[in-house]
């Protein structure tokens, strides 16, 4: 068992697609929350294996895409301060704020580095006591344990040259925001398997009940996705609205308890501004007051936001599942992965980047 190849079997995928076709009797609209799933659905052509009656909308589940421009501008300002080394994940360095991207800050002489893990940033701070190392921390519940671990390790090591600019986001409040919008169209959700690996499935139960939507926890391989779609459609056809777990090899109902304990210890829930969606109450994680000494905002001061730039980008509609990337006049013309106008084209998990990579011919 390698946990990858087994879930890419083409013959099984066809049989699942047939089972889906045999299940559907009327039109349904589903949304996958997670950008990793969007990417996998397009890469493996799963959207094209589904009956016409099934519409897949792509959700806001790309942390890079929803990080507000003001946070990126603040990171750029910090990167420009003397003695600072600013680290983040690769995609975060390319995302445009209103004052450019972190890569443009590097071109101006800032010490900006890509890291694979927040723990690499802690190690860098230990190796370079002469530098102030700042980690720009973004991500969903999947990534929050790694960020929490970085804080706990920095505390243990007594580091005073490590801090974080934290802009973490939470999935359930975003689902509720989508469902309570007046033009809500989504009838069933594929919940993000790796978010639920950390958090478990309990917090989705009240949402499924309140809004009468099935929520199926789904993995990332083709068979996982097809199985999740089939389960969701079976529920809809039968008039059920339950939380189901189709990613049992990774997701336990209670999630990862030690990781949740670290999240509760290190972070406090706060309102968060989502790029393209606006502020959502209680949808973010920031550092808890006891860890305020690791907050880069306290260490370097807040910055005034740059004036927003006029842009043809419709990524707000795309993140809310209102429009598809090919509906954007800039798609593939003035906006490409090399010259992105919006975050959804930058991130490898953004819907615009996924369509650019796998569906450009269809759009032409």
């Amino acid at each position, binding site marked *: *068992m390698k946990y990858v190849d087994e879930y890419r079997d083409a013959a099984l995928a066809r049989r699942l697609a047939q089972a889906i076709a045999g299940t559907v009797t009327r039109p349904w609209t589903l949304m996958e929350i997670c950008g990793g799933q969007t990417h996998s659905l397009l890469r493996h052509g799963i959207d094209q294996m589904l009956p016409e009656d099934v519409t897949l909308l792509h959700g806001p589940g790309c942390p890079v895409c929803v990080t507000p421009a003001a946070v990126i501008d603040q990171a750029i300002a910090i990167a420009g301060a003397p003695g600072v080394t600013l680290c983040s994940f690769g995609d975060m360095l390319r995302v445009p704020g209103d004052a450019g991207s972190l890569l443009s800050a590097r071109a101006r002489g800032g010490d900006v580095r890509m890291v694979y893990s927040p723990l690499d940033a802690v190690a860098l701070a230990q190796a370079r006591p002469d530098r102030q190392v700042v980690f720009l921390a973004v991500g969903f519940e999947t990534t929050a344990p790694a960020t929490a671990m970085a804080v706990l390790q920095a505390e243990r090591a007594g580091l005073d040259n490590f801090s974080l600019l934290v802009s973490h986001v939470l999935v359930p409040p975003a689902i509720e925001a989508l469902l309570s919008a007046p033009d809500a169209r989504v009838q069933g959700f594929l919940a993000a398997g790796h978010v639920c690996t950390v958090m478990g499935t309990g917090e989705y139960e009240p949402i499924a009940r309140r809004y009468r939507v099935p929520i199926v926890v789904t993995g990332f391989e083709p068979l996982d996705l097809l199985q999740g779609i089939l389960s969701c459609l079976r529920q809809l056809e039968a008039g059920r609205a339950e939380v189901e777990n189709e990613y049992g090899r990774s997701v336990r109902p209670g999630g990862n308890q030690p990781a949740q304990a670290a999240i509760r210890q290190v972070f406090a829930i706060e309102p968060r501004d989502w790029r393209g969606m606006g502020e959502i109450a209680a949808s973010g994680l920031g550092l808890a007051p006891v860890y305020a000494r690791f907050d880069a905002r306290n260490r370097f001061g807040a910055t005034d936001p740059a004036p927003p730039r006029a842009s043809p980008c419709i990524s707000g509609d795309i993140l809310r599942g209102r429009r598809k990337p090919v509906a954007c006049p800039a798609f593939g013309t003035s906006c490409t992965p090399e010259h992105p106008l919006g975050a959804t084209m930058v991130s490898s998990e953004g819907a615009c980047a996924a369509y650019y990579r796998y569906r450009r011919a269809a759009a032409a």
Partner: protein
Amino acid sequence: MCLAVPGRVLEIAGEDPLTRSGRVAFGGIVKAISLAFAPEAAVGDYVLAHAGVAIAVLDEAEARRTIACLDTLEEAER
């Protein structure tokens, strides 16, 4: 960004729960992965790693059950 990759634990170092770490093989690539949130992980297990941290030990029995269910899809159809 929430990409998390299954890898096999080759070796475990450290007793301290906060810094316990494993050498984990992802295909041909071997990386150091924090096992602080996977205290039950043992050598030979597959863990799911994200941003340098294991967030789950994969459940082989459950994984086989899923595949077996898919294999008997026709019978499973209601």
